[in-house]
């Protein structure tokens, strides 16, 4: 329940007003009486939760009187450009300070941003490196601070103050990111804000690393920092710092990175001071505002250049990270003139005891990531880049989750927001002669990596993750293959870091790192960038564990483009009950490891070999037990039968694809000794393959008659609209009598919660025992 002074509540607390009773016969309040009521409500607000008026808006504010005054004195575009470039330099300097000095693994690989804002909190410019998504999100906490803390006598905003926050309900990409937001004053007036935000990882959640796949309530998600003042007049408050350190697994990290962020922001402020000294306050303020407004105008112009029409793209996610389900992320993008509308209706409901839900603001931030990194990467990273785009979404869907939904692994929903816009844009921009980015197949969209935690070899308690989430395969381009393991969708310059450096600090090794998995490719005329595998095992620690937090083990998480195929699915594989270090110490020849070989040959006697989906809750790793995963591939582009046969032969020779794929998918014939393509036989095979398609394909309408069903398969736990009609959602909810499928509009759906998977498993096993007892005539008397 969100209770603010401005939002009527139904729980009899802060927002109740005298006129809510049914059959009310009371007189309307006079203006004076209403003023008293408002004053009373202001003074007795129980809890200042996230403010819907702030949180639902991604538009920039209107120009303030002061900004108008500054702009009216004349704007020299050359000077504005010069200010912008100096700001970019200052922000990059701050960024590099965070990257070089940050303690969090995320800081080391560049998962952070620095930014400057207008006084009202619109992002004007972001560091050139880092996570662009923040340009759509960090106006929320500033607006909250301005609305609730600026005139609050117990808080206030003064020069040298700094505010921290992490909770995405108040505006963030996700709860692992912690910000330091500081105002810039001139003559007693706030004229701008500067902030640094770092993916800190550990945040005291129910599992280490800050992104728990196992959270079942919002209170499992870790720190719930609404924006509050932690730096007063330049001094870090030790009492609040201690509280934060006490709330997380890694108190050293909490302190270190707070200091890093404060230092970086102060350095940026120094640079801003020198710019203002040179150009004057009014020119500086005008430059910030003009940049925001210019970007909005340019975005409108770019939208108007796109063809009018609607592009739809549906995604299906196969996991709650505890069990396999299918939940839909629906998206229709409509362009009409200079207006764009993104309609997410039809998306599945929030699941109130699973971690996959995301607040809408986080989904929007990843849409911004698509817009500013994959549509129009040349634009300044401003809040206004999304201002002209309307977003329609139903609250209480998993991509627009309510206050009470857990969102520990909200990236599952928000990254779908990225993919929706990134994928749709290939169709939207294809016929547009004016392009600012290449036509591209879908980027891989899962953070396939290991999160870890426990006690290190140095006795420190830690929790964080491997940088390999940054090894996402790039989508194929229209004119060349996608790049292997190139970068995460959210941060083009993030790298996979120096694992050997990490191993100095944590008690596990990547026994296999960055080995391409054969056939793990988005096939197409141009293939998607491939993913690699990694095998980890811990040793020499009293307590250690791993977890994984992604989906896509049963349903491919990205599709192809224009006839290309999507990515494979990716499993988690484990070998327990052995110590690989002991084995390879005795016989180093056993070190020739790959997931395929280990799992298929099962070479280690006594090992327990298992696979699972990629939602592994924190799992205690005994010495030498192996955990194996692989990155996924970007989507393929174009018809596989158009792929250059020589490129297929090269992939074969390098072991990137198997002979079976080369023949059955790509239709290539070659000499197995020399890898020389038999052009004639290939032409014939491809001709035959096309003829086979024509023979087996059914005319569309006839196909629909045989294929389309009125509802999802009976045993599939399916959530979301079925087909293009997005009015009603299908869902399975669990009643006293077991699972029951319902179909209703979002406001009429029951609350969706899933049963404990262990109970489900035990129940099935008990049923099986009773079945066997009956079969064999064994009578067992049990007490309940």
């Amino acid at each position: 329940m969100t209770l603010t002074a401005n939002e009527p509540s139904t729980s009899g607390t802060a927002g109740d007003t005298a006129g809510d009773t049914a059959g009310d016969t009371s007189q309307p309040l006079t203006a004076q009486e209403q003023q008293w009521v408002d004053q009373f409500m202001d003074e007795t607000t129980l809890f200042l939760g996230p403010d819907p008026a702030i949180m639902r808006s991604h538009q920039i504010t209107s120009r303030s009187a002061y900004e108008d005054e500054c702009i009216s004195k004349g704007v020299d575009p050359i000077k504005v450009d010069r200010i912008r470039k100096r700001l970019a330099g200052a922000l990059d300097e701050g960024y590099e300070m965070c990257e070089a000095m940050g303690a969090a693994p995320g800081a080391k690989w560049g998962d952070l941003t620095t930014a400057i804002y207008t006084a009202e909190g619109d992002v004007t410019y972001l560091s050139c490196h880092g996570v662009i998504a923040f340009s759509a999100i960090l106006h929320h906490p500033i607006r909250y601070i301005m609305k609730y803390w600026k005139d609050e006598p117990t808080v206030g905003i003064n020069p040298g103050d700094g505010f921290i926050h992490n909770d995405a309900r108040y505006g963030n990409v996700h709860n692992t990111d912690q910000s330091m937001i500081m105002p810039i004053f001139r003559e007693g007036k706030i004229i701008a804000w500067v902030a640094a935000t770092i993916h800190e990882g550990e945040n005291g959640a129910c599992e280490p690393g800050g992104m728990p796949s196992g959270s079942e309530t919002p209170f499992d998600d870790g720190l719930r920092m609404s924006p509050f003042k932690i730096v007063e007049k330049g001094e870090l408050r030790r009492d609040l710092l201690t509280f934060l350190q006490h709330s997380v697994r890694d108190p050293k990290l909490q302190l270190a990175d707070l200091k890093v962020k404060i230092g970086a922001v102060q350095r940026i402020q120094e640079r801003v001071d020198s710019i203002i000294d040179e150009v004057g306050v009014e020119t500086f303020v005008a430059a910030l505002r003009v940049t925001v407004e210019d970007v909005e105008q340019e975005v409108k112009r770019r939208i108007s250049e796109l063809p009018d029409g609607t592009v739809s793209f549906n995604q299906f996610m196969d996991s709650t990270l505890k069990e396999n389900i299918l939940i839909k992320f629906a998206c229709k993008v409509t362009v009409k003139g200079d207006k764009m509308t993104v309609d997410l209706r039809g998306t599945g409901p929030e699941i109130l005891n699973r971690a996959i839900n995301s607040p809408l603001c986080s989904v929007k931030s990843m849409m911004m990531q698509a817009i500013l990194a994959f549509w129009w990467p040349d634009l300044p990273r401003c809040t206004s880049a999304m201002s002209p785009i309307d977003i329609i979404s139903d609250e209480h869907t998993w991509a627009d989750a309510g206050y009470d939904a857990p969102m520990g692994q909200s990236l599952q929903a928000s990254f779908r927001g990225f993919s929706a816009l990134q994928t749709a844009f290939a169709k939207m921009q294809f016929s547009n002669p004016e392009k600012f980015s290449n036509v591209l197949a879908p980027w891989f969209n899962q953070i396939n990596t290991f999160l870890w935690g426990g006690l290190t070899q140095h006795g420190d308690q830690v929790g964080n993750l491997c940088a390999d989430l940054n090894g996402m395969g790039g989508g194929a381009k229209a004119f060349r293959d996608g790049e292997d393991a190139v970068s995460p969708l959210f941060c083009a310059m993030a790298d996979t870091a120096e694992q050997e450096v990490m191993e100095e600090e944590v008690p596990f090794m990547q026994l296999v790192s960055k080995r391409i998995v054969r056939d793990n490719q988005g096939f197409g005329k141009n293939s998607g960038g491939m993913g690699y595998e990694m095998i980890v095992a811990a040793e020499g620690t009293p307590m250690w564990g791993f977890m994984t937090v992604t989906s896509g083990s049963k349903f491919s998480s990205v599709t192809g483009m224009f006839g290309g195929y999507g990515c494979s699915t990716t499993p988690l594989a484990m070998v327990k009950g052995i110590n690989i270090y002991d084995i390879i110490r005795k016989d180093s020849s056993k070190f020739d490891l790959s997931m395929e070989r280990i799992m298929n040959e099962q070479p280690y006697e006594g090992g327990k070999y298992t696979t699972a989906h990629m939602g592994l809750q924190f799992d205690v790793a005994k010495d030498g037990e192996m955990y194996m995963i692989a990155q996924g591939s970007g989507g393929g582009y174009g018809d596989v039968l158009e792929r250059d046969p020589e490129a297929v032969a090269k992939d074969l020779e390098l072991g990137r694809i198997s002979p079976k794929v080369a023949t059955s998918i790509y239709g290539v014939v070659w000499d197995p000794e020399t890898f020389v393509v038999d052009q004639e036989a290939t032409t014939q095979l491809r001709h035959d393959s096309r003829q086979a398609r024509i023979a087996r394909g059914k005319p569309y309408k006839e196909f629909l008659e045989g294929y389309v069903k009125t509802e999802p398969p009976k045993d599939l736990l399916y959530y979301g609209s079925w087909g293009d009609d997005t009015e009603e959602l299908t869902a399975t909810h669990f009643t006293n009598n077991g699972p029951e499928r319902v179909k209703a509009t979002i406001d009429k759906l029951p609350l969706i919660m899933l049963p404990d998977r262990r109970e489900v498993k035990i129940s099935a096993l008990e049923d099986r025992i009773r079945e066997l007892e009956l079969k064999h005539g064994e009578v067992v008397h049990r007490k309940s």
Partner: protein
Amino acid sequence: MRIPMTEYLIIDLDTERWNCRVCNQDLGEARGNYKEGTLVYDRDPTEIHQSILDPEKYEFTFAPDPTFCRILEFYCPGCGTQLETEYVPPGHPPTVDMLWDIDSLRETWTKRGTKPEVVINYGPGEEAVADFAPALGSHNTHNHSPHSFS
């Protein structure tokens, strides 16, 4: 005027029809869903994304689960080119993925006054230059097109 709308689809504004870029096969009304003019096949995804781990031993093998995921393949009835794929749950209706405002498209291109097959490209960068002219100008003799095959 013929506008390339995807790698394999054009809209002919004179006839207001969708056509295959490779063989010029008619695929239906440009104001409607091009998929209605295609041949469709319900592909078992394990035939494309084949198991890497032994499916006899393991549930999760790198291959999608066909009870969760199907791949709809949309073919041109004229030349058999795979125009599009779509990943859906079994029985889920295919998505109408593109609907264009043809009047607006015509107005835009008339105003531009340029030839679509000359000015449309794959984006910034030398490599991304796309020459659509051969396919568009020679749809009856498509052997010269970049997509030509026998």
